[in-house]
């Protein structure tokens, strides 16, 4: 069957299945199992209302459990086992982790990930804050915001192509077609650089891509927060003779600290999962490896599920503090 047709059929079956599940299960509950008529009407209604939430939640719970919760535990189990021929597996304790920590590539990936964690959220937030503050003060601010926000819609792979063109290198006797080298030579650089193979610094050229994408996100959120600041506090600052910089750093920023933390943590999570950019631009060569790409390498190129799962668990471990912090905040807010 043609995939497009299959897709259409799936939409119909999926949507139709969902709708009819919800419809008929509710009908069944109200009309057959616990009808709201007869001598037990009152009791039946109460009982039906006890069951109904679970009818509404059932598909979501199954999907979440199977596609997100179960894999966490299964990956944990896999990271402690070794695959044997014939679909067998054997418990090996922490051997996979030992094997992984003996691999210099793993430490390179971890080191790079830490660097990404320091640089990308910080730069995205700073640029986002700057863009939000500036664009709220000019008449064409909305257009500026649209343009800075636009890379959010571009795929990591698309962004990788866009930036590879920026970083392109030609031999010195030819004309440079990459903007970065053209600028570098214009300002007196001796030789065109192959930016993506410069050890250590090449990671920063990859990070620039993610900063470029994430700044728009930071800007949108921070701009809303900046607008929510009560005007009296700013007026009071002006009356007391604060200059614009003081107003920004001493009055505005402290009031949106909570939002800055949210933006920071959200981008941190994106950074921990960053895969496509490295995969498409350097594939971890020239010391640019990151954890997610390392994991992909181990799982699907080396077919080593044990070490692959172990590195996935490291990513999970790094996400854990944010996970706990988010749950803690959500609970506090619901009270």
């Amino acid at each position, binding site marked *: 069957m043609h995939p497009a047709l299959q*897709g259409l059929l799936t939409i119909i079956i999926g949507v139709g299945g969902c709708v009819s599940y919800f419809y008929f299960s509710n009908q069944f509950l109200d009309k057959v199992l616990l009808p709201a008529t007869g001598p037990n009407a009152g009791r039946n209604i109460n009982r039906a209302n006890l069951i109904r939430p679970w009818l509404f939640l059932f598909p979501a719970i199954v999907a979440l459990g199977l596609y997100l919760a179960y894999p966490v535990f299964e990956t944990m189990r896999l990271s402690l086992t070794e695959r044997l021929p014939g679909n067998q597996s054997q418990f090996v304790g922490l051997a996979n982790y030992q094997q992984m920590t003996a691999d210099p590539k793993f430490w390179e990936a971890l080191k790079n990930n830490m660097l990404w964690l320091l640089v990308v959220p910080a730069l995205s937030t700073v640029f986002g804050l700057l863009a939000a503050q500036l664009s709220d003060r000019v008449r064409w601010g909305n257009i500026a915001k649209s343009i800075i926000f636009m890379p959010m819609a571009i795929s990591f792979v698309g962004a990788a192509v866009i930036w590879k063109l920026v970083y392109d290198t030609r031999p010195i006797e030819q004309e440079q077609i990459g903007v970065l080298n053209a600028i570098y030579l214009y300002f007196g650089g001796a030789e065109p650089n192959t930016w993506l193979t410069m050890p250590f610094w090449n990671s920063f050229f990859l990070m620039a891509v993610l900063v470029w994408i994430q700044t728009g996100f930071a800007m949108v959120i921070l701009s809303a927060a900046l607008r929510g600041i009560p005007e009296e506090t700013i007026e009071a600052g002006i009356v007391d003779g604060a200059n614009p910089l003081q107003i920004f750093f001493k009055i505005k920023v402290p009031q949106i600290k909570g939002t800055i933390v949210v933006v920071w943590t959200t981008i941190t999570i994106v950074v921990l999962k960053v895969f496509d950019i490295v995969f498409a631009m350097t594939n971890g060569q020239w010391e640019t490896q990151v954890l997610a790409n390392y994991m992909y390498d181990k799982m699907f190129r080396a077919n080593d599920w044990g070490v692959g799962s172990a590195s996935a668990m490291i990513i999970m471990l790094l996400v854990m503090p944010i996970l706990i912090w988010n749950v803690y905040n959500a609970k506090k807010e619901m009270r």
Partner: protein
Amino acid sequence: MDNIAGQKSSLVWAVNLSLIALVLLWLFPTAGLLVSSFRTGDQIATSGWWKSMVASEQNLTLRTAPSGEQVEQNGKFTIQGNLFDGEKASDISVWGISSRAIADFKPGDTAQLKKGGAVTVLANGDYKIEHDEALTGKRGTRIFVTATRAPEFTTANYQKVLFDSGNREGMAKAFFNTLTVTIPATIIPILIAAFAAYALAWMDFPGRALLIACVVALLVVPLQLALIPLLKFHNQIGIGKGYIGVWLAHTGFGLPLAIYLLRNYMVGLPRDIIENARVDGATEFQIFTKIILPLSFPALASFAIFQFLWTWNDLLVSLVFLIDSTGETTVMTKQIVELLGTRGGNWEILATSAFVSIAVPLMVFFAMQKYLVRGLLAGSVK
């Protein structure tokens, strides 16, 4: 805040200028790709795309017409024509007849050819070769010109990438595959999430707080953890690698955000409406379909855009759950990564393919930006 005293005009200038700089910095890389996709491979390789907007000076090697076209005039054999035959005319500043001396002559000058005869070239590319004897040789004489060419763009790259059925690296198939992945993977989670979000927002039952906490926790679980276990699971139940697997996977991975966004929105709906409906005897199912769903449209739209962008732009999930060794089900992101590997230098193909895949999300982005921003705010500032 314009009404506040103390706004200096110099400051306004500084703000405008820095914002312009920032915007240009953000626009420049994408503009480069867009412009490059409309240039030929030669143009991209010989000059930076930022120079394509203005007329530029180029060194070209052109040929006169072959000797077959000569005519006899007053006892002299002549060939006449234009060097830019069929192409856009350019302005020649200097020219030459040897690759070592390409700037020996000015337009209007006459050069003596080595094999005999003389050639005259005018600024607009018109030339005239005169010789006493009949000219021989299949190919015309080479003329080296330095000319200022007007900006020139072509849609040939798009023709090749999208519509050339002989091009095995074309994007047409991948485009439809991506679309096939995206649409069901966007619609199905919305429906499942909407019911769950309603239950979590407006129904009272034991364990509700715990479930919400679980959803918040699952929001940040990296999907990297799910790859191997789910691939194993898909193989066990016999769907293996394919569209069904990728739809299910996207549904599962999209649900936490969907439930979270929709619940946050539904909680904010006015309690009176829902309680009035309950008093009037509406069932929960009716309340949901007739009141909650229509009122939640903005939140549904926000999530739909997120999920659409995410599934359209995804590489990892498709790599793991969809694309098998036949490559029949390849998606655009994967196709581009392959091109990056095999055609790293062919920027006209790369730029065009990348822009084909970027164009759809960009259109969605500009058309529905309002909902996207609203969704971001609902999902983050809490």
